[in-house]
């Protein structure tokens, strides 16, 4: 590693495509756990978080296309309209790619503040599509975006920790 600061090194950790696919798969599994009632309202969107993580950390690997495809899978699983999650995730991925330099400069607390609008935007896109088609919005839906944002820091730490031992295997 050429860079000096340890924070930059975090962002230069290698990530194999298999590992990326695995994290996305686990995120899907977590999203598809049988949440119900109150827990469903509070459910963070793990897929969105993991996508955002990869879009900010490896923007050339995971981009809008992959986010969109994950969205289609989520649409099928959630019985939402085709393209509803896909649109929300595409917007989220775009935000992540645009902001990835800025996010890389900040520590976790500041990152959390930066990604909150992105997550909220993606939730809003989803809700707006629903509102446009069905004419009402369930406001409690947005509480999920708060929980997701709060989970950003632990998730980032976890993924970084998982990527670090990977370096030995991959190199």
């Amino acid at each position, binding site marked *: 590693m050429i860079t000096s600061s340890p924070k930059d090194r975090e962002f230069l950790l290698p990530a194999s495509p298999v590992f990326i696919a695995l994290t996305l798969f686990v995120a899907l*599994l977590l999203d598809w756990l049988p949440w119900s009632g109150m827990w*469903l309202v509070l459910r963070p969107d793990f897929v969105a978080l993991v996508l955002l993580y990869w879009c900010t950390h490896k923007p050339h690997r995971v981009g*809008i296309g992959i986010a969109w495809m994950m969205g289609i899978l989520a649409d099928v699983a959630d019985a939402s*309209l085709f393209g509803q999650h*896909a649109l929300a995730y595409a917007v989220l991925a775009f935000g992540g790619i645009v902001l990835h330099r800025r996010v890389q400069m900040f520590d976790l607390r500041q990152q959390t503040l930066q990604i909150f609008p992105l997550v909220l935007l993606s939730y809003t896109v989803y809700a707006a599509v629903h509102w446009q088609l069905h004419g009402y919005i*369930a406001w*409690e839906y947005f509480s999920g975006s708060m929980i997701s944002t709060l989970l950003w820091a632990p998730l980032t730490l976890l993924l970084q920790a998982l990527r670090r031992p990977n370096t030995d295997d991959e190199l």
Partner: protein
Amino acid sequence: MEHTESVRFFNRGPSPAARLVFFSLLSLLLLFIDARYKYLESTRSAISTLVYPVQRLATLPVTLWREAGEFFVTQNGLIHDNEQLREQHVLDAARLQQLQMLQAENGQLRKLLDVQQRSDYRMQLAEIVYVERDVFQRKLFVDKGSQANVLPGQIVMDDNGIIGQVTRVYPWLSEITLVTDKDHAVPVQIVRNGLRAIVFGSGDTGDLSLRYMPVNSDIQNDDELVTSGIDGTYPPGIPVARVNHIERDPAYPFARILCTPIAGVNNQRFLLILSGERKLPPRPESATEDSKGLGKKGKRKMLP
């Protein structure tokens, strides 16, 4: 913004903005097609065959946990349950005999009166895989799909009453829209006086509402609503809801009536899908349906 330049410098394909526009347009197109037409159902079920194993995997921990819980039941509890079930069985058997007699009698009378026979519905037991995948919708997924001959439009109930309706069928799953889903309508009748009405789901709460009932209509608290069977989709006489709140404000033309579903819409694991002969309405059936619709329209016109 420096980023987009660097991307162009290394020539890594279209810029993120271009990709966003492309995928957004694609999403919007899909949204439009999916909302207006039914062209994408086969694609959906094709993708769902990919998604299904993952979904089952995701529900596995909960299923295992539940099964482990079932494994460790006490003998005492089992004995108690058994006794209760046996008592219930005796009661049910007696009722069933009466029912058979009544059915025969009813059939005879209907034949005498030349009324169409009520057809039998076969039932299929299905287990819930998922409850409400989405805050916006009241939907369930059960583990029977087109492989088990489930058809969209079939009615789903538990042992107490109507739960909802099959709205989409995948190979091994089917999606059930609950009666509490926003604007889901069930044609009902009040048991006490036979008043016809339509009960709608209210979306975010577990309540149902009786809409378009005049302020002076004869409805009381605790009135039981059963399906009227008029639309031909729901079999007649299955309990749907009980009235629990009536607000009659003379300022509005209609009373505000809330009902709670009788079936355990939110607390079942096994459901019954009514299948078999979906009453394909022969002529008298469709005639009654038409006359009902006309009558309603006529009434609405005559009101002012």
